[in-house]
């Protein structure tokens, strides 16, 4: 039983197995899968249609075209389109947040220790969490675009289906960054409550201190400062440039560069911190 081992492996062996383990919990559970699709519908219906900011602009003043006013403030004449795109960044934030929770479960249930006693690399264990959250978010971004189209998303003038690939690319970057941070925060806790509290504390402010639902230029100065460093602002802007604005390529390149730098730094810090914790 002991002589032949027959194990052949590269540095990244086990990455897909661990990632797929996470994903299976999602796509093999019809209820959870369905909810993750219904959730954006609800949000878009509530925020985008019920709170239609576009309707606040009066239509009966002579000489004033509401569409022009909206275009000046939001960059598009349709608030729903503006907000639906914001939903994509919102999804990135909330899906990655829960990737941190699954680390706590793995610790509590002993799976983490078990994985650590196998030859699988420590980095792979962490990266599988990052990757599964990222893939999930990207899938949900796709769903949101499809649902938003059904609700009447107005694409920008230069839109081509290829732009959707750009959306996936920026989602990949921001999710890698965000989930690395969340995992570094949660990996030290053995109780689910602590990371929940931390994550709740930072998530909503992070969400609203961005341009996801409201243009930053109307925010007070201090909030604008936060929004300006918030990677979600650049993610949302990139998605808007790609989908609903008439694409400003310089701005888009800047958005991508910013989010890519954020992702690199966050992933490095996150993985180094988690790694150090795992090899204590």
């Amino acid at each position, binding site marked *: 039983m002991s002589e032949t081992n027959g194990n052949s492996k590269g540095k990244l062996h086990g990455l897909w197995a661990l990632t797929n383990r996470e994903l299976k919990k999602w796509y093999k559970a019809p209820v959870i899968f369905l909810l993750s699709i219904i959730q954006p519908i609800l949000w878009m219906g509530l925020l985008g249609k019920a709170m239609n900011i576009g309707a606040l602009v009066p239509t009966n003043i002579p000489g004033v075209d509401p569409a022009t006013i909206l275009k000046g403030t939001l960059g598009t004449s349709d608030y729903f389109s503006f907000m639906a795109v914001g939903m994509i960044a919102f999804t990135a934030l909330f899906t990655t947040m829960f990737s941190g929770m699954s680390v706590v479960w793995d610790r509590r249930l002993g*799976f983490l220790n078990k994985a650590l006693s196998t030859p699988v690399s420590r980095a792979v264990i962490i990266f599988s969490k990052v990757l599964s959250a990222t893939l999930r978010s990207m899938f949900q971004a796709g769903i949101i675009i499809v649902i938003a189209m059904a609700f009447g998303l107005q694409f920008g003038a230069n839109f081509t289906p290829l732009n959707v690939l750009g959306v996936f690319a920026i989602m990949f970057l921001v999710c890698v960054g965000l989930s690395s941070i969340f995992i570094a925060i949660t990996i030290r806790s053995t109780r689910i409550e602590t990371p929940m509290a931390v994550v709740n504390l930072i998530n909503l402010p992070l969400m609203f201190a961005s341009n996801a639902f409201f243009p930053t230029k109307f925010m007070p100065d201090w909030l604008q400062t936060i929004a300006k460093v918030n990677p979600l602002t650049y993610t949302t802007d990139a998605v808007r440039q790609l989908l609903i604005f008439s694409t400003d390529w310089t701005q888009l390149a800047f958005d991508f560069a910013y989010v890519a730098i954020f992702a690199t730094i966050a992933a490095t810090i996150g993985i180094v911190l988690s790694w150090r914790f795992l090899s204590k």
Partner: protein
Amino acid sequence: MVSEGVIEAKGLTKIFNKHLTAVDHVNFSVRNGEIFGFLGPNGAGKTTTINMLITILKPTEGTASVFGNDIVKQASQVRNVIGVVPQEYTADEDLTGVENILLCADLYGIPREISKKRALELLELVELTTFKDSKVATYSGGMRRRLELACGLINRPRILFLDEPTLGLDVQTRTATWNYIKLLKKNFGMTLFMTTHYLEEADALCDRVAIIDHGKIVVVGPPEELKHSLGGDLINVAIKENEDVSELIQKVDRVKEVRKEDGTYRIKAELGEVTAPFIIEALRKKGYTVTKLSLTEPTLNEVYLEYTGKSMRDAEESREAFAAQRMTMRRARQ
């Protein structure tokens, strides 16, 4: 490889948060093909020791080697040759039995064509073939334990680590689990390192036992030898008369020690079942009437008591409570 010393621990120490010494300079060596047991109550340092040996905790001081590989410097070589069956049920409840084994196989980088075959063999071994495609959420405690065992064997380890293999199992399932463990040793010549706080378990399974208390090994040896070293069996005798007959009993052959406690004579003697009739005979000859007699063969509890000054059984209750709490946790997750 030398036949002796599959595991060699030298001054192995783990101190948590700079002051909590969980494992305190332990030295031991595990021989090839034996079942070596760590016996001790909750918090004695058993799991910490196992966690260092399976490379998930770094020792604060000292070192150990597994098949000649250092557990810190050559951790990845160690991980390749060991199998681990943790205390917890780590199998994923949302996956089926066979999916769980294949997941373990992937962590070892075993190619699919090999792992599929092995998974089926192992499921056969632990008698889970019928349930292989059922979700683990539907498994009983004993089935889960067996699945963990199968997972721990997927890389064909040369040594298997079992942390409290029967914690929280009922008596029947426990005995069944013992049989699987014996089978591994007998059929595959595997070396097993296990921790337990069940005295009967250490007695029934282990070739050699290390009794651990407050992070220190107090004594190591085969269970029989340890029990024997206590000086034989214990005979309790009570007589009707109100006289001290200690000296009379002392004169009987093979009697080593007599103590009188509350009208009962506690007698240490070799071969208790042979000696007891002689004691009765000696007393009767002098006209005394024996009213009570009991014979106890020493258990590991007496050994434990002898070396640590306290009974092991006290520690068990807290452990059971812990197991119950974990079951609740599991349910909470669903």
